[in-house]
């Protein structure tokens, strides 16, 4: 399942970084939200490669 892979290999490390560096938490939240919102937009528009 792609959502599990995203959590394991992208959001998991970012969450670990946010826990280790508390002052980066909000920034990492905005960054990860932006990246996944962009991916969602591309998927909806059918622009992702097969």
């Amino acid at each position, binding site marked *: *399942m*792609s*959502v*599990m892979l*995203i*959590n*394991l290999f992208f*959001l*998991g490390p*970012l*969450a*670990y970084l*946010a*826990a280790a560096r*508390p*002052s980066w*938490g*909000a*920034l*990492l*939240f905005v960054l*990860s*939200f932006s990246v*996944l*919102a962009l*991916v*969602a*937009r591309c*998927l*909806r528009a*059918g622009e*992702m490669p*097969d």
Partner: protein
Amino acid sequence: MSLVHAGLLVLAWLLSTVLTYILLRYAIRQGVLDNPNERSSHSVPTPRGGGLGIVLATLVVAVVLHRTGSVSTRLLLALGGGGLLVAATGTWDDLRTIPARWRFPLHLMASAGAVALLGGLPPLRFGSAVVDLGWIGHILAVLAITWLLNLYNFMDGIDGIAGGEALTVAGIGGGLFALAGQWPPAILLWAMGAAAVGFLHWNWPPARIFMGDGGSGFLGYAFGVLALAGAREPCHIWPLAILLIAFVADATVNLIRRVISGQKWYTAHCNHAYQHAARRWAIARSR
């Protein structure tokens, strides 16, 4: 983590596996089926409501942890009281569709109760600044938990996605809480993850049973409550919030897009990014 905690995780997994099977048999006997329509990602009538196995398994572990003194009464009431209200509302909606004007106030009530029991939204860290949002923060926390439980329900549209999200978010989130020494939310998260494994045994594609609104609403609500419970230090709300972004980003962007384009944002649709991806994958596989 003690041997008792490890045993409780095994108990959550076993309970969820067995309860989901019992719910599967019950749903078939009683005709509680999700019939496919033009928005569906499935093609055969499939039993629903299996997520109640996760709800019951998680709450049994929470009660045992409370009895051993590991979980406070306030956290048990927030998770159990509000969680049961959310799960009951969702199950009621699964059996007999109830209008949003009834569902929404019940969701708000559960979220507000949890925020009040857990002492509201703690100060948040933004860079080097620690900001206490006060009453605005408490209201934002209520709205965030309400949105989280609803979006989790919206995102439960293909086999294994909600269970897979629960397993990975709970597993990693529990690990991060444990590293920070916050054992009560850590063990509860791991119990939810173990229960999700039991449910996924029956929900992995091709699913033999769906989660239903009761289970998906409970999972979103529980993640919100446990993020709040673990956020007593300014740093600890962000890690779990980041872990939930895959669901939050898709559902939130979709909601904003529908509101801006003047569509009825509260009606069911199949326009989430994951649904587009699933359709493309199905087409590619059939070639």
